[in-house]
């Protein structure tokens, strides 16, 4: 045999991206789906939940970290504190970062953890990243394996450096064609989630391919990798290409560390799904599940009280640009409160410099400080009977306030069009 055999002498098949990364982080040459390995993450992130992991560390009597350089802490969820308890908890997190010399510490003004960490070059292809947030899948936009865990497990990774992971099977998702005007990555993902279901990719890895991919910006890829969580994905990958390289290289401390991990040509996939982007239309996720999707045409005219443009799904600069393009020179409906939360300081600065921020304010928007904002219940709380349209990634009941309020999810373009009309509207009339 010309190929090296596996442990039982069997021929070794090509590996998917998840298999390669998990094998590397577990220090083995090869893994198979279903296998449980002890993997050493390159980065373990925690956000406003950090204080909880700190309390676990205290509880178990551990004082030493496996490697302080592998920790990242970003206080993004309730920023800044609005009650004594949040203030005290944030202080606990701050003190911990200072005590242990955690360099990758970002305070309440930095913005959303995932965006901040990617902007600052702390995420690179082939990395294994875990953290106290389910949307760690977003790191797949840069070809890293990102997966959410609980705060106790984060403390465990802090101290031991590792965690058990079950090697997932992988679904291959091929995208062809191009978006029609007014249709975007968010609509693609809502379409997929609606089709595959909230657990359609449960425990699985997803790899994106196809002729449509090279055209997609990093921002769109982030939206895709973020929303993939809502179909249950364990992790998701948009294989790194020239665009990834261009975006990331200037941000890396050590450019030589940029080493994309790609699937083998003969990697084995559990399932293959194809989507022709040109057939897609603007989509809405209706209350109270993300998988409850409908084409926007079926919910036109639904009155809204509030519109939220932000979150790690769609709070990026490109998203603000799309919304501003529709809002420019116009005023939002007087019955709508439009809240815009830039995803990070960097995004807000770019929006200031390019005039986008002024455009949004002039249309009647309220621009908040960068952070998770209303998505996580930080402001934008709704009263009984109120309706919010949001570019975030979840619309579970009561997430934005009253359990008698409703959340619809959409793309930034749909959001802007709807804020103008005071009701859910089709963005395509503005293109």
């Amino acid at each position, binding site marked *: 045999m010309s190929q090296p055999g596996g442990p039982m002498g069997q021929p070794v098949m090509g590996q998917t991206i998840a298999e390669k990364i998990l094998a590397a982080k577990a220090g083995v040459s090869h893994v198979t789906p279903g296998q449980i390995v002890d993997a050493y993450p390159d980065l373990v992130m925690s956000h406003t939940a950090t204080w909880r992991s700190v309390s676990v560390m205290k509880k*178990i009597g551990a004082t030493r970290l496996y490697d302080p350089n592998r920790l990242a802490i970003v206080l993004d969820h309730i920023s800044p504190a609005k009650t004594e308890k949040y203030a005290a908890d944030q202080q606990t997190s701050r003190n911990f970062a200072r005590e242990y010399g955690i360099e990758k510490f970002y305070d309440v003004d930095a913005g959303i953890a995932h965006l901040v960490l990617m902007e600052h070059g702390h995420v690179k292809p082939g990395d294994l990243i875990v953290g106290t947030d389910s949307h760690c899948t977003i790191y797949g936009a840069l070809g890293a394996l990102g997966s959410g*865990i609980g*705060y106790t497990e984060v403390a465990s990774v802090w101290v031991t450096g590792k965690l058990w992971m079950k090697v997932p099977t992988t679904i291959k998702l091929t995208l062809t064609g191009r978006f029609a005007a007014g249709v975007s990555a968010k609509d693609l993902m809502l379409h997929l989630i609606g089709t595959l279901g*909230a*657990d359609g990719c449960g425990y699985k890895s997803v790899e994106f391919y196809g002729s449509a991919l090279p055209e997609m910006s990093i921002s769109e890829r982030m939206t895709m990798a973020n929303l993939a969580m809502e179909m*249950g994905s364990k992790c998701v990958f948009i294989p790194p290409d020239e665009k990834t390289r261009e975006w990331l290289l200037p941000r890396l401390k050590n450019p030589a560390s940029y080493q994309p991990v790609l699937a083998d040509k003969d990697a084995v996939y559990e399932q293959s799904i194809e989507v022709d982007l040109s057939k897609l239309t603007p989509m809405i996720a209706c209350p109270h599940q993300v998988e409850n999707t409908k084409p926007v045409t079926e919910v036109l005219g639904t009155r809204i009280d509030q519109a939220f443009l932000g979150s790690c799904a769609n709070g990026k600069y490109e998203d603000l640009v799309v919304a501003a393009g529709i809002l420019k020179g116009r005023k939002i409906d007087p019955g709508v409160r439009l809240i815009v939360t830039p995803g990070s300081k960097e995004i807000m600065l770019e929006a200031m410099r390019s005039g986008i921020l002024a455009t949004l304010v002039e249309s009647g928007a309220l621009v908040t400080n960068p952070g998770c904002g209303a998505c*996580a*219940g930080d402001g934008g709380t709704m009263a009984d009977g109120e309706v919010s349209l949001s570019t975030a990634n979840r619309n579970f009941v*009561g997430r934005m306030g009253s359990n008698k309020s409703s959340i619809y999810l959409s793309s930034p373009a749909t959001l802007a069009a709807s804020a103008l009309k005071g009701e859910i509207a089709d963005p395509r009339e503005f293109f």
Partner: protein
Amino acid sequence: MQDTIQGRIYKFGDNVNSDIIIAGRYLIYIEPAKLAEHAFEMLGEGFPAKLRSFDILVAGRNFGCGSAREQASTAIKGLGIKAVVAASFARTFYRNAINDALPIVECPELYEAVAEGDEISIDLAKGVVAHAGSQYGFPQIPESVAKILKLGGLANYLKSTLRA
């Protein structure tokens, strides 16, 4: 941790998400008792109290989907719930339940068979759950992971390994 768990069940449907189990505004707490006061509150004010009179939760697909919040399993434990049986679990809930020493069982057949208030008995060692004269098998948690559950959760597991 006991090998047999039995009691009355409360039945949920599919996709019971993290926000329904415990709302974001209560994540300032990590104590089971405090969290239990607000568990499933989104379904109605009387819910936390109502669920206390049951022993085991049975649910459909994708139980615990959504956020990675560990407090979802902590809140359920705080209610005095001894185990959760579901047709399937969201992966973060699955992990967090193990880390919180909340026994979880994957058994779609049981979900189909039961109604609210029914009595069931789960034999964790044998991998079988009994209900109304029938027995349903379920996959065991891999030993390497189950030991965390058996030692009373991840924090306890870590304490013992750190001491060693």
